[in-house]
């Protein structure tokens, strides 16, 4: 079991952390949430769990919500993303890199400003690449609602991109 859990963590650590960060808004609390989730996972029998990945995401989400309830959400919300600085090179390639970087910045900010229910679905779908049915289970939301929210999230992101470029 330890090996399975370890593999899930190694493969999904950024997305798990992003999900917790999205809920708590604080790097420290997000790390505590991931840690607490794994402590609980280790103390539960998991042999019966067929697909461990969504199970672990659900555990981290629940843990982050628990911690979020106990602690006030941080006023300075930490970004979900690492910021790529465009590498300096000359000519057109450099210009394209700057444009691309600007688009990425807008997209990052657009994701972060999504309402929480949409943002978590974007994290679970676009970054963790989970199935919609898994996301429905993780978020305890009907499948249709998840699909609608995801479409709405993408639509919002596209509008932001179009509006600012």
């Amino acid at each position, binding site marked *: *079991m*330890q090996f399975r*859990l*370890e593999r899930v*963590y190694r493969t999904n*650590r*950024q*997305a*798990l*952390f*992003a999900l917790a*960060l999205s809920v708590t808004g604080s*790097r420290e609390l*997000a*790390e*505590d949430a*991931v*840690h*607490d989730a*794994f*402590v*609980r996972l*280790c*103390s*539960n*029998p*998991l042999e019966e769990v067929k697909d461990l990945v969504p199970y672990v995401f659900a555990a981290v989400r629940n843990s982050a919500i628990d911690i979020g309830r*106990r*602690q006030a959400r941080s006023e300075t919300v*930490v*970004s*979900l*993303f*690492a910021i*790529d600085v465009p590498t300096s090179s000359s000519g057109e390639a450099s210009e394209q890199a700057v444009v691309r970087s600007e*688009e*990425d910045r807008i*997209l*990052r900010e657009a*994701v972060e400003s999504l309402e929480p229910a949409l943002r978590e679905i*974007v994290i679970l*779908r*676009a*970054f963790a690449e989970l199935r919609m049915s898994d996301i429905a289970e993780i978020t305890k939301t009907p499948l249709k609602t998840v699909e609608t929210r995801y*479409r709405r999230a*993408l639509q919002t*992101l*596209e509008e932001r*991109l179009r509006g600012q470029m």
Partner: protein
Amino acid sequence: MVPQDLENRLRGLKLREPSPELDNRIERVLANDLESLPPNRVASQLFTGIPGARISLTAASLMLGLAVGFAIGSSRSDGHDTELAATALLEHPHEFGPEEQRVSSELRLLFLEAEKQHIGATPQERMAFWQEKTGETFDVRAHVADRRFEFCRLCHLANGS
């Protein structure tokens, strides 16, 4: 932009990395592989970092919560529940099975050890003190092998024990 393109653009963004400290914490949790260990071994393994002579009521209460949590299979993590379960186990050990009773007697030894060191506060008071200090609900499993456990220990040391 079609949704597929937008999804690809999103996937091109780099998510923030968790700190190496989190990786270490998860590694330690997985290394302990709590589910495969009996309660007493879980407790002793997790407290190997604490020098024997410094076993305090804090450690005893932590161990008690941990042992009770595993021994009676409670999935609840609320500090109050832990406290109630701990009290019940200590006060009415006959109502529990032989394994729980054995854990209970081991815990009694820890409490005696603590009393020898003239530590006045009860574990419940310690938990309450810790909760008041941190604003968090006491969850023993969450405080093992993590920075808050270090804080917990420091907190109690600073308070005179």
